């Protein structure tokens, strides 16, 4: 996989000074951006509540952590402690009625993605009943959602818990992965498609080499020869296509293989109409990218830049007419066949990257035909299409059995080593954390109680809850030991306990724990805890 490359900024953007429309007062009171390039994601004081019929569920109440480039952060806690809500809050996938991100900052690439949050809704507290009534401004919420499209997928990817439910049942797997690929890498793909040279020199000998490698049954040679063909033609998808044609070809028929490869190369010859169509699609994608960059700039500058965004929208609107022309049914299906074909083989290549053994069948299949483990790999492939900085994995293996779990974790570790994506791994299984994570955050009832390196937390848990968690793991070397558990049950998040939320179940509870919420203190290098038992320096965040 290629290194991450940022699209170049346009002249328009360079000429317009940032935060031009922000008033001096707003600038003065704006939170200082954290520009540490080593940190991919910074959460500060995130608060997400759900306004339901039964009351206001305080799902997350002041969560802060950082994720550095390339590290794997584990988010651990019982069911219902708010881990998934945190993940969804980061990418703003919380269903807005009834949920609501109340306050907080989420810094990504120097932009606070929660900018403008206070303008999206207004709150009123009834002093008598202490109930919060909320009035949403749906237009601003929609704008915020549109802004997030700049980040989702391309900057932050997500995979979910039940892979069989998480995919659309009426589209094939290849279609869905292809959609993500086209969305984020469409411009490059179309460029390569337009630049392909189906009449280049040296195609014939390359095909012969492939046929020879196929006859000789050497997989390494097959790979190399097909790759060379791809380089000659100038289209990597031809390499994939040739490879699988060879793999699929039975026994002798060398002549058939050659003709098949030639036919697929001939399909790269595009008519003028097809070129126009591809150029048109490319224009739309470029406009979308520009718009996404606009959004990112807005979030960085914390001010709306109306002028250029309006210009982009105007341009896109004019392109819509030609889009209608191209989109006439039947027309597009004929003209766009080259693109569809290209996308299919790109998807196959992409699926190879997540160690799927038979990517062609998988890409052609439907979600209900594939197993959970396979689907989870596909989801990972889908999330990594755009090579995001951060991959959020929400309980990726909970719905899978243990052997598949091991494979998925192996895959994730491999990705971490190869590509250097930061991973935020959410789970309730400590074993997975021990295997894959670098650092851990322990959550309880919507708050983070302890953070630190995996090594530190596992060997020296500080917070009583973390201690209870680790003590409750059954140990093979002490078979007669009684199973320990934490007494009590998870609190009701509509009426959570005051002060430290763990105090009703804590064996070391002190009077102050009932009154005030404990501050987060630093107890070691990178090891913070929120408990009144410890009196280290308060953490800087």
């Amino acid at each position, binding site marked *: 996989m290629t290194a991450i490359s940022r699209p170049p900024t346009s002249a328009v953007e360079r000429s317009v000074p940032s935060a031009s429309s922000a008033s001096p007062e707003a600038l003065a009171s704006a939170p200082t951006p954290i520009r540490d390039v080593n940190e991919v994601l910074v959460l500060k004081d995130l608060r997400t509540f759900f306004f339901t019929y039964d009351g206001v569920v305080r799902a997350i109440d002041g969560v802060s952590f950082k994720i550095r480039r390339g590290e794997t952060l584990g988010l651990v806690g019982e069911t219902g402690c708010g881990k998934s809500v945190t993940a969804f809050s980061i*990418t703003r*996938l919380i*269903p807005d009625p009834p949920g609501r991100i109340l306050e907080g900052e989420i810094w990504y690439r120097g932009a606070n993605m929660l900018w403008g949050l206070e303008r999206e809704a207004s709150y009123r507290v009834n002093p008598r009943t202490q109930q919060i009534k909320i009035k949403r401004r*749906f237009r601003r919420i*929609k704008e915020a*959602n*549109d802004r997030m*499209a700049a*980040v*989702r*997928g*391309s900057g932050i*990817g*997500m995979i*979910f818990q*039940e892979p069989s*439910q*998480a*995919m*659309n*049942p*009426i589209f094939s797997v290849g279609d869905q992965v292809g*959609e*993500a690929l086209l*969305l*984020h890498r469409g411009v490059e793909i179309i460029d390569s498609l337009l630049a392909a040279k189906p009449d280049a020199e040296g195609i014939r000998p390359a095909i012969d080499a492939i046929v020879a490698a196929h006859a000789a049954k050497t997989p390494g040679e097959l790979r190399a020869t097909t790759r060379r063909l791809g380089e000659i033609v100038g289209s990597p998808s031809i390499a994939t296509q040739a490879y699988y044609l060879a793999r699929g070809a039975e026994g002798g028929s060398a002549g058939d293989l050659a003709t098949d490869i030639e036919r697929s190369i001939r399909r790269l010859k595009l008519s003028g109409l097809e070129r126009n169509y591809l150029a048109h699609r490319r224009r739309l994608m470029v406009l*979308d990218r520009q718009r996404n960059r606009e959004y990112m700039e807005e979030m960085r500058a914390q001010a709306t830049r109306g002028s250029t965004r309006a210009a982009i929208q105007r341009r896109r609107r004019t392109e819509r007419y030609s889009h209608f022309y191209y989109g006439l049914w039947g027309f597009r299906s004929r003209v766009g066949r080259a693109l569809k074909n290209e996308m299919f083989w790109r998807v196959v290549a992409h699926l190879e990257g997540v160690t799927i053994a038979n990517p062609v069948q998988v890409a052609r299949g*439907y979600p*209900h*035909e594939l197993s959970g483990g396979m689907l989870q790999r596909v*989801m990972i492939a*889908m*999330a990594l*299409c*755009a090579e995001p900085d951060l991959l959020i994995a929400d309980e990726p293996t909970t719905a899978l059995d243990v052997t598949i779990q091991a494979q998925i974790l192996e895959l994730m570790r491999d990705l971490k080593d190869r590509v250097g994506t930061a991973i935020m791994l959410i789970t309730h299984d400590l074993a997975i954390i021990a295997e894959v994570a670098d650092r851990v955050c322990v959550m309880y009832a919507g708050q983070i109680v302890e953070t630190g390196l995996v090594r530190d937390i596992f060997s020296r848990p500080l917070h009583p809850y973390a201690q209870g968690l680790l003590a409750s793991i059954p140990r093979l070397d002490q078979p007669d030991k009684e199973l320990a558990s934490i007494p009590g049950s998870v609190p009701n998040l509509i009426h959570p306990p005051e002060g430290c939320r763990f105090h009703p179940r804590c064996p070391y509870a002190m009077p102050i724990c009932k009154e005030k919420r404990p501050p987060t203190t630093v107890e070691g290098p990178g090891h913070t805890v929120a408990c009144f038992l410890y009196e280290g320096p308060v953490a800087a965040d």
Partner: protein
Amino acid sequence: MRMWVYVVRRVALLVPVIIGVMTITFLLVTALGPQQQLYSAFGPPPIHGTIHSYNPTIPCSEITPGANGTCANPLWNELAPKLGLNQPIFVQWGFYIYRSFTFQWGLVSNFSETQGPLSAFIHGQSVSTVLAQLLPYTLELAIFSLIIILAVAVPLGNLSAVYRNRPVDQASRVLSFSGFALPAFLLATLLVLAVVLVLGTSTLVHTPWCPGGETSYSEITGSWPTPLGCGAPGGGGPISNFYYPTWLTYGIVSHPTGFPTVDAMIHGNWWLAFDTILRMVLPAIVIAFGSIAILLRFVRNSMLEVMNLDFVRTARAKGVPESTVVKRHAGRNSLNVTITVLGLTFAFFIGGFPIIEDVFQLNGVGYILALSVLPGQEDFALIFGSTLLFTFLVVAANIIVDVLYAYLDPRVRLG
């Protein structure tokens, strides 16, 4: 290949339903009594053409049966065995099922006195022929209405779901419920009145179309072009404000498909085709107005349900723009319920629109049915024949709906 198996299986499941409906009509027919059964099957005596004297007012049960168990009435002796009337009821049922499946539904026997030029023409004709000639008109109207309903209800339902409980949602609900709550005959009449008052006599509501023939009793509404009536042999033609098609006025009419619009286009008579469609506009609006509410409700609920499913969230997390998520991912998945309701609505439409066709003086099976059920002058052959026809059509609609399911949802096809 799998598709064929699926279709055949669906058809096979529906055959018992058809037989069940036939049984019900059979029971009803039997309840009418043997004399009525004879009438319905073979028409009243003068039309049947027999030279035997026959006193229709004396039912056979009052005539002493002969020594060998047959009735002394000669006509009865001749015709009763054809229906199995002197055999146990199970045999009669068998005869009935056979005749129903082979489209021998009887003769139109009671239409000589009812109003309208149509009735004079169809008196004595075979029920299945009459219905077959009238059905295309109703089908055209049904399809036209369905198109309007689809075009309005589906987008509006999607919008209502996406902007739930916001002004669009409330307004669309109020509008569609108004359509539903207004009785069709009221709306139709008011609409006709409005058109006449506001536009004067317009092409939407035509002057009567029989050149030189009797005008319809109402100055307001007109009739569809049809060969079946107007007294003149071979039929008359429409009078439109634009064009006077000569071939119709001279009574040369050929109907390759039976569908008036299609036939007009086949003949190259574009004004006639346009005219026909124009006549359908008002009735289709009335029909659609009443049915949009139902479909809208289902589209909205189905869409709401789908938008809460997991894969919609995945699509958003991929970075797909919201409009595409709604249209492509959620929209196609919510089509299942839409198609079911569409099929049900179509089946409901197949019942004919007796009221609409009555008010707008259109030809169609509903209109015929309305004429045939006037108390005191009922034509049971036509009534029961219509029932069977409607059943066949409903079953066909069900099959089409199932096939559409299989096309849209691969899980149904393969699983």
